């Protein structure tokens, strides 16, 4: 290696210069030398050995204690060099992993895309932003011929590819064309059995499933341990937490889910979310639900999509642009 041949001479020059002058220039030369050595994989113990050897050559009367001190310094520094190399290797591995994850995230996004339905009289907005590359939250819309909308929002606990595969199970189950679309409680019960059977014991899913009947404007829904959303009553100007009890999917294959119904009137809103919204933390503490409601009112006159986007931006700002958890927010507003 060309560098090593000249390395000894170079270091000797720097050492001699500094001993003579203690100048900043010599130190700067030293730093440049360091950078080159590191690039050429010279280890710290080699530098110390070189240093000692040069000193002995330059000062034949060098006291024994100085020589001994360098010997022990070499031994003590040696593991630092090993640690450094391990660190470098870890950084390379990290870079590789990151590109793998980015590919996986892209695949996930492509496979699981869902379009927000456009329905007369209903204004729907949805946003889902992952905290890292792969999204642990999932939402899916299905619109059928009677203009009824099915909506699922799920939080897969457990990450990565297996979680994404769970999501595709949900999507597939929902997309399958069925004569009679099953009721929310049946959907959850079926999915629960599938998840319990097929999924890693350390993974489970919280899910909220609802169906909006467009003709009767009735929203029927069931929840499997999902973070409760809200109804907004347009006339009374009041928010009400959606109470729907049910066990997470995948825990007990015999779980039954209760189905609820709510009449949705003009001006009312259905607000669905993942716990990334309600568990938002800043340095001062949790961002409370009341804050969310304040924001909804603040942007109430905008379209649902604009509402959810603006709220996300507010939350992002309050967390200093570092999301701790995946953020999903869906708003359905009945206009007419």
């Amino acid at each position, binding site marked *: 290696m060309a560098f090593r041949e000249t390395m000894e001479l170079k270091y000797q020059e720097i050492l001699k210069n500094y001993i003579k002058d203690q100048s900043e220039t010599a130190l700067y030369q030293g730093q440049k030398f360091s950078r080159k050595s590191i690039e050429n994989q010279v280890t710290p113990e*080699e530098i110390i*050995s070189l240093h000692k050897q040069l000193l002995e050559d330059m000062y034949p009367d060098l006291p024994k204690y100085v020589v001994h001190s360098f010997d022990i310094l070499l031994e003590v520094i*040696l*593991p630092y060099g*090993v640690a450094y190399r*391990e660190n470098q290797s870890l950084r390379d*591995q990290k870079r590789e992993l990151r590109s793998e994850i980015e590919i996986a995230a892209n695949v996930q996004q492509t496979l699981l895309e869902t379009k927000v339905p456009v329905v007369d009289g209903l204004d729907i907005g949805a946003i889902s932003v992952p905290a890292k590359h792969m999204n642990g939250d999932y939402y899916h819309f299905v619109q059928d011929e009677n203009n009824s909308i099915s909506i699922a929002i799920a939080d897969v606990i457990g990450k990565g590819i297996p979680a994404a595969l769970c999501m595709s199970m949900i999507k597939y189950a929902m997309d399958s064309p069925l004569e009679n679309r099953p009721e929310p409680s049946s959907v959850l019960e079926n999915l629960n059995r599938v998840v319990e059977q097929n999924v890693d014991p350390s993974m489970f899913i919280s899910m909220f499933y609802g169906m909006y009947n467009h003709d009767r404007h009735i929203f029927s829904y069931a929840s499997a341990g999902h973070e409760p959303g809200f109804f907004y009553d347009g006339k009374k100007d009041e928010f009400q937490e959606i109470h729907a009890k049910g066990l997470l999917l995948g825990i007990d294959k015999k779980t039954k889910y209760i189905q609820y119904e709510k009449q949705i009137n003009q001006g009312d809103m259905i607000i669905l979310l993942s716990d990334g919204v309600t568990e938002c933390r800043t340095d001062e503490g949790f961002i409370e639900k009341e804050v969310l409601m304040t924001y909804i009112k603040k942007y109430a006159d905008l379209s649902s999509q604009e509402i959810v986007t603006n709220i996300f931006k507010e939350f992002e700002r309050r967390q200093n642009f570092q999301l701790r958890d995946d953020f999903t927010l869906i708003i359905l507003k009945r206009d007419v």
Partner: protein
Amino acid sequence: MENQSCVLIQTEWDIVAARQLGRNVAKEVGFGTVDQARITTAISELARNIYIYAGEGQVCIEKIIKNGQAGLRIVAVDKGPGIPDIRLAMEDGYSTSGGLGAGLPGVKRLMDDFEIDSSLGSGTEIKASKWIR
């Protein structure tokens, strides 16, 4: 060509004895100061593993020659519990006994050749060699 001396590892002092043996042999073979330090550190790490995880074992140092090149081989053997997941133990960043720099990946970096054989219940054997360049 074998020229072997061994140290029984039972107490922490035996680690020092193994180091000393390693350094002496390294000097005889003709390794420079830095390589002596690397070999000794590797021996120290292997002997320490025996002492901590197996309780008892043996470290042997051999002079070796291959294709006219002189070198030194460390053979560390124990009848301890064995390493359940060798791949994991050889991974960077994985360390049961401390931070970076320690462990088997470290030994591999300090030496030129590295071989390991270990199974649950049957103990561990590690061979690591270094050659005069």
